[in-house]
């Protein structure tokens, strides 16, 4: 597998623009742009996604659909204001044939925009904005991860089944937070329970005290939340320190306890979350994947790695159908939708709006692991509201 070196990119960028590039011949390698955060808060996520994508490519002998693949890495810095320029770099300067990206839900909007306009296939390996597979859906946009709505829906459904009547949702005030609140609400509603309060604070602040002080007075049976990374660590610890853990159970979208259990320590013990992946999911593919990923990177696989790997599998399935032609977007989409993706999370297919139809697992934090208890919602599809996919 070759990765385009900095020098080649430099040469490409400085080459006089008028030098026309040869039309994409079947023999020429296919260029895939990995636009991911390689610096900043989400750097670790970007690295795992990229490494797993490369793992998938290596597994396929460096070829998808019979065509050699080269990767172009670009650090998006998780900066939405720089996103349009960064997408331009990959499409205009590096002439990539397909895009993979990204983590930040603002930056991904610029990718979706470009993928729609220029009809370049885009694979979203994390960002869960519902819009990407709802009103902004497009034949060229695919998601290998989840919609923010899905995990929270699973959690709400489980709570309602347990007899919870009223619940609150605590989150950062941004798209992922609001959309997960909607999922939680719909999940609760499916079992006759109600979401009575949504408490928010500006992203990425971690001063949770003003929110926590309100919780005892809300009169709810359970509190759900969507936080990730450092916010998740701090929120779980502060929730326990505020003396709320034993009074009103805390639960959440799986990111609340994903990759942060060690730092949360005892405060996280017993917290139930819902996600499309869990530690120790018992299937052969997961076992193989975790071993292969650890061997390739010396790191443990996580949900982000799974999503990156599956982005590779989806691209491979599409290119197999078009014999390596990424520009034949319709045939590519048909190929991907006809394939059952053999994911470490369990096999899944794509919905008509190109979001995974997948099982959301209920997990419980025990001794530093998110133990899978069972399915919270099986074969759950995002509603895909407002998606008008041209056929």
């Amino acid at each position, binding site marked *: 597998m070759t990765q385009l070196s900095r020098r080649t990119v430099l040469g490409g960028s400085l080459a006089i623009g008028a030098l026309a590039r040869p039309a994409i011949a079947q023999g020429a390698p296919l260029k895939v742009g990995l636009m991911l955060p390689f610096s900043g808060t989400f750097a670790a996520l970007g690295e795992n996604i990229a490494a797993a994508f490369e793992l998938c490519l290596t597994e396929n002998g460096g070829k998808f659909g019979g065509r050699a693949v080269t990767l172009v890495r670009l650090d998006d810095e998780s900066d939405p204001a720089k996103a349009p320029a960064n997408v331009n770099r990959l499409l205009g300067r590096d002439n990539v044939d397909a895009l993979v990206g990204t983590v930040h839900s603002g930056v991904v909007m610029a990718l979706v925009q470009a993928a729609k306009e220029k009809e370049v296939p885009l694979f979203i390996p994390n960002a869960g904005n519902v819009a990407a597979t709802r009103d902004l859906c497009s034949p060229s946009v695919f998601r290998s991860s989840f919609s923010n709505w899905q995990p929270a829906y699973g959690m709400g459904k489980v709570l309602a089944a347990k007899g919870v009547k009223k619940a609150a949702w605590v989150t950062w*005030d941004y798209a992922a937070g609001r959309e997960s609140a909607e999922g939680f609400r719909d999940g609760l509603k499916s079992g006759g329970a109600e979401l009575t309060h949504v408490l928010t604070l500006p992203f990425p602040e971690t001063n949770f005290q*003003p929110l926590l002080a309100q919780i005892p007075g809300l009169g709810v049976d359970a509190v759900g939340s969507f936080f990730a990374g450092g916010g998740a660590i701090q929120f779980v610890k502060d929730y326990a320190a505020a003396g709320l853990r034993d009074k009103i159970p805390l639960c959440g979208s799986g990111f609340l306890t994903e990759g942060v259990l060690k730092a949360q320590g005892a405060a996280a013990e017993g917290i139930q979350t819902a996600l499309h992946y869990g530690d120790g999911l018992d299937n052969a593919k997961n076992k193989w994947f975790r071993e292969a990923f650890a061997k390739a990177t010396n790191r443990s696989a996580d949900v982000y790695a799974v999503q990156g790997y599956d982005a590779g599998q989806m691209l491979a399935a599409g290119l197999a159908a078009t014999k390596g032609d990424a520009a034949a977007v319709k045939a590519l989409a048909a190929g991907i939708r006809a394939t059952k993706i053999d994911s470490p999370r369990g096999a899944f297919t794509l919905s008509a709006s190109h979001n995974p139809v997948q099982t959301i697992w209920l997990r419980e934090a025990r001794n530093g692991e998110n133990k899978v208890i069972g399915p919270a919602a099986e074969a759950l599809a995002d509603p895909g509201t407002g998606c008008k996919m041209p056929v």
Partner: protein
Amino acid sequence: MQNAGVSTFLAQLLNGLQYGLLLFLIGSGLTLIFGVMRVINLAHGSLFMIGAYLAYVVAGWTGSFWFALPAAISGGILFGTFLEAALFRRFRDREHLDQVLLTFALILIFEEARSILVDNQFHSVAVPELLDFSIPIVGGFAYSAYRLAVLAVCLAVAGLMVLVVERTNIGASIRAAAENPEMVGLLGLDARRIHMLVFAAGTALAMLAGALAAPLQSVYPNMGDGFLILSFIVVVIGGLGSIGGAFWAALLVGTIDTLGKAYVPQLAGIAVCGLMALVLLVRPSGLFARG
């Protein structure tokens, strides 16, 4: 429900007090540096970030958070002395534009150094074991002992600062310098020593605040950004160079920010800036400025 509303409100006031006191540690250093040296320092928030990361690193090395506090204070004094001697002393004669850009460059360099020396991750810092328990406050809401201890430490530091600035000879020189920087030379005071002292103290305070906040807020890249703006507002409301002014302004800003986040979360940031606008309308030199 009425009762729950009242006890929640009381808990929020306590949150505001605690947040405001932390703000005071950052803002008081800033107001002294502005007041005495007349140097703008946009990197003051980064000093807070450095203090927090230092606490994270030291606590990790030694296995105990207790070493983090003296490390932050002594590290702050050393670092502040170095910064003053190597850079800020020279920035004083520069135009505002240069000062803004030079200290903006410092922010970038500090953040990159943090990225190289530590990493880009969020990190949680464990509360010291001795204080790892909670005390019920009001209406089913508890406060961690550590949070209460931070509140007490901030209060103690504030008292100490008022004492030093208002009652000692050094304090008198600082006050004289803050009121009229040109006077210092005329009075035969050693301006260089006062500048170095003030800058070192301001740096140490910001880094101490960062270290204290580390177990409360986690450490993460750019964590000083929000505090920079808030502490600027504290300086404007409190009046340049006024420790007492900074104290009351910090409590006011902390309380309004907390109540805003609790009751109108989307307008909290705007509310604090609005407060500053109001003060500027009424008293452009600061609400608590002398005279």
